[in-house]
């Protein structure tokens, strides 16, 4: 194999590859990226056995072929090369080395046979549809903060992507929860997605997927089966196993009868929460919300550290209410609001609270209160 490729294109492909490759590997081949050159393009394939990413880049292929080389090392080399450099990758098959050269820099890297590289078995996808990048971006960006890291409830370690019945018909829905807060985000159902099986997309896959969604004009080809999910742009194909588990019935924890309504400027609210929480050094800082006629008092009382209080003018017309929340959770859901006011719907100090943006029910959040 011998190819010449622009540094920028190689860097982009390697950045994607190295982030999939685990830093610590007990199986040497998994630290490598598989480089395959054929025709006028070259593909870079990396895997951690759960996720596989293949990035196709344009290159000048002098001699077809394939080899594998340490992904992190090649990424570091390319990163340190000067902008605009033309990089040549060559292996003669005999020495077991990949020669990397650019300008006057030359590197010789150990390789492993391409036959040893595990290629993810292709799957029969039962659903194939296309979704604009901004739609997927919204679905995952607004839900991922609620993904659980708790290993005992592994089925919460991802975003549950499925078809659901929304208020105006069927929707493509993403739900994530860690048992303390929950995010439920809807998007119009793309054609072809009607029979999609619900899948739990793992946290790491969500992170990798995000890199495919930067460009507003890209259409993402989505394929789903019971066990795998695939997202593809013309250049990059991301295939991932899904979490083998049953996502809990989240519908029963979304409060529908909450009537006490608070409307507040989300940015002002978040800033105030952040300010009062400063006095507490505890890991789970509790913020108390005291609601009265168009008035919200936020307060934190940390016996060892001090106390803080801030008043906000809000729209609230219901009876008095005192309720506590974890400051971090409040901040996280408030920061999901980007266009209108945040609307909170409370029941009592012990019941889940619902938050949405204005009257928009296509993105709702539930947060559990905390005893204060």
């Amino acid at each position, binding site marked *: 194999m011998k190819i010449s490729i622009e540094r920028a294109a190689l860097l982009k492909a390697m950045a994607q590859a190295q982030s999939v490759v685990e830093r610590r590997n007990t199986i040497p081949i998994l630290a490598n990226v598989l480089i395959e050159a054929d025709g006028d393009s070259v593909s870079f394939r990396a895997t951690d056995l759960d996720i596989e990413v293949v990035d196709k880049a344009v290159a000048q292929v002098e001699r077809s072929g394939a080899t594998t080389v340490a992904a992190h090392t090649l990424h570091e080399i390319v990163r340190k090369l000067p902008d605009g450099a033309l990089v040549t990758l060559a292996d003669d098959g005999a020495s077991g080395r990949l020669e990397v050269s650019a300008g006057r820099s030359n590197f010789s890297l150990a390789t492993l046979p391409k036959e040893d590289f595990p290629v993810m078995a292709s799957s029969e996808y039962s659903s194939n549809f296309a979704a604009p990048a901004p739609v997927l971006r919204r679905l995952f960006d607004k839900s991922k903060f609620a993904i659980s890291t708790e290993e005992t*409830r592994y089925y919460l370690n991802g975003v549950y992507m499925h078809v659901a019945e929304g208020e105006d018909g069927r929707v493509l829905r993403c739900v994530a929860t860690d*048992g303390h*807060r929950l995010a439920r985000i809807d998007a119009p159902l793309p054609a072809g997605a009607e029979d999609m099986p619900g899948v739990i997309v793992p946290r790491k896959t969500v992170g990798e997927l995000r890199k495919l969604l930067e460009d507003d004009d890209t259409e993402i080809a989505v394929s789903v089966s019971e066990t795998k999910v695939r997202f593809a742009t013309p250049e990059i194909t991301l295939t991932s196993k899904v979490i083998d588990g049953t996502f809990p019935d989240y519908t029963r924890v979304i409060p529908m009868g909450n009537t006490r309504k608070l409307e507040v400027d989300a940015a002002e609210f978040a800033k105030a929460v952040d300010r009062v929480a400063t006095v507490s050094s505890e890991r*789970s800082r509790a913020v108390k919300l005291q609601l009265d006629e168009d008035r919200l008092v936020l307060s934190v009382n940390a016996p060892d550290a001090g106390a803080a209080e801030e008043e906000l003018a809000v729209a609230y017309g219901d009876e008095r209410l005192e309720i*506590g929340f974890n400051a971090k959770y409040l901040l996280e859901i408030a920061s999901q609001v980007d266009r209108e006011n945040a609307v909170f719907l409370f029941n009592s100090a012990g019941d889940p609270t619902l938050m949405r943006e204005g009257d928009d029910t296509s993105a709702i959040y539930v947060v*559990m*209160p905390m005893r204060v």
Partner: protein
Amino acid sequence: MPALCRDCMETFDAGRRCPACRGPRVTAHDELFTLSIAHMDCDAFYAAVEKRENADLADKPVIIGGGRRGVVSTACYIARIRGVRSAMPMFKALELCPDAVVLRPRMDLYAEVSRAIRAMMTDLTPAVEPLSLDEAFLDLTGTARLHGAPPAVLLARMVRRMEAELGVSGSIGLSHNKFLAKLASDLDKPRGFSVIGTAETADFLADRPVGMIWGVGAAGQATLEAQGIRSFADLRRWDRKELHAAFGSMGERLWHLARGQDSRRVSPNAPVKSISNETTFAEDIADRDLLDGHLWRLAEKVADRAKAKALGGAVVTLKLKRSDHRSLTRRVTLREPTQIADRIYRTARGLLDQVTVPGPFRLIGVGLSSLRPAAESDLSPDLLDPDAARRARAEHATDAIRRRFGDGAILKGRSLR
């Protein structure tokens, strides 16, 4: 050289025998009357208490431990002469010493004697840091004027009083810090009194193995040995930066300990770091339902202790020991501390469900750590488990009933498995 007779408490200058009573139990050391940090370790404590309770046992080898499959918890000195050691499997101990009297530990009794010993210690100084029922650090700095005698004399009087009033003997280590005091108490057991002064600290440590350092176990020793460190002298050849680079924060500790320096204070209220309970089965268990019953009982015990101390813990640990004694631990960090048995049990059960090793197991344990005040525990209910709050309320009601009518008044069916 100042000397002290531990039989008659006579103080004098040098000599192998006491000039007053001609007794041989003399401790002599240049710094004897200036050192003030001590470690007191009872001699074969559990066995000594049992012998006190039953005069027939006095000249018999006595082993305290649990059941046929248990391990030796304490062996009296007669049994020790035959090779019996603490933590030895019971069957092995009985091979070495077939005529031994094996007794189940009676913790309540030992705790009572321990309280009496602790009272004797606090008569001398408020700075008493108990490490377990039978050992403690004492800081006697500045007490000489109050008691009209130097620390060494006070300590010797105290152990004499323990023997006379409680029938339990102890060994004293006297030095200038906790690390050395603890090493010293072990030098001359039983009924010992050892002194490590500032002048000979370096020489004393030089050829001793680094395994004597608390926290350096078999694995730690192997790591150090890979770097050519076996003794304190080896350790002292490293400079501070090198040690820090090689072993991180532990390196810093090693540098100081290599020089016999230890700045830890004797603190009477050493905070509890973890609460755990474990049980060794009479016969190995592989059946998950049976394990589940044990898990619940242990979770309940741990929760009871946490509640009694007004603490909650954010880390739940499950411990299992296989038939070949290899142990296996799994832990998980909760979002917030808890003291609810139901939550501890469910978390531990989740960990057990993820254990792929089929067993059978000889031991199961549940632990709670990252402890916080109860007021910070169980504040936010689980959205996905709306019944949890109800179960927690039921548990609190159960606790109230048990407080009033006794522990057996109300039980979960699960605990009978």
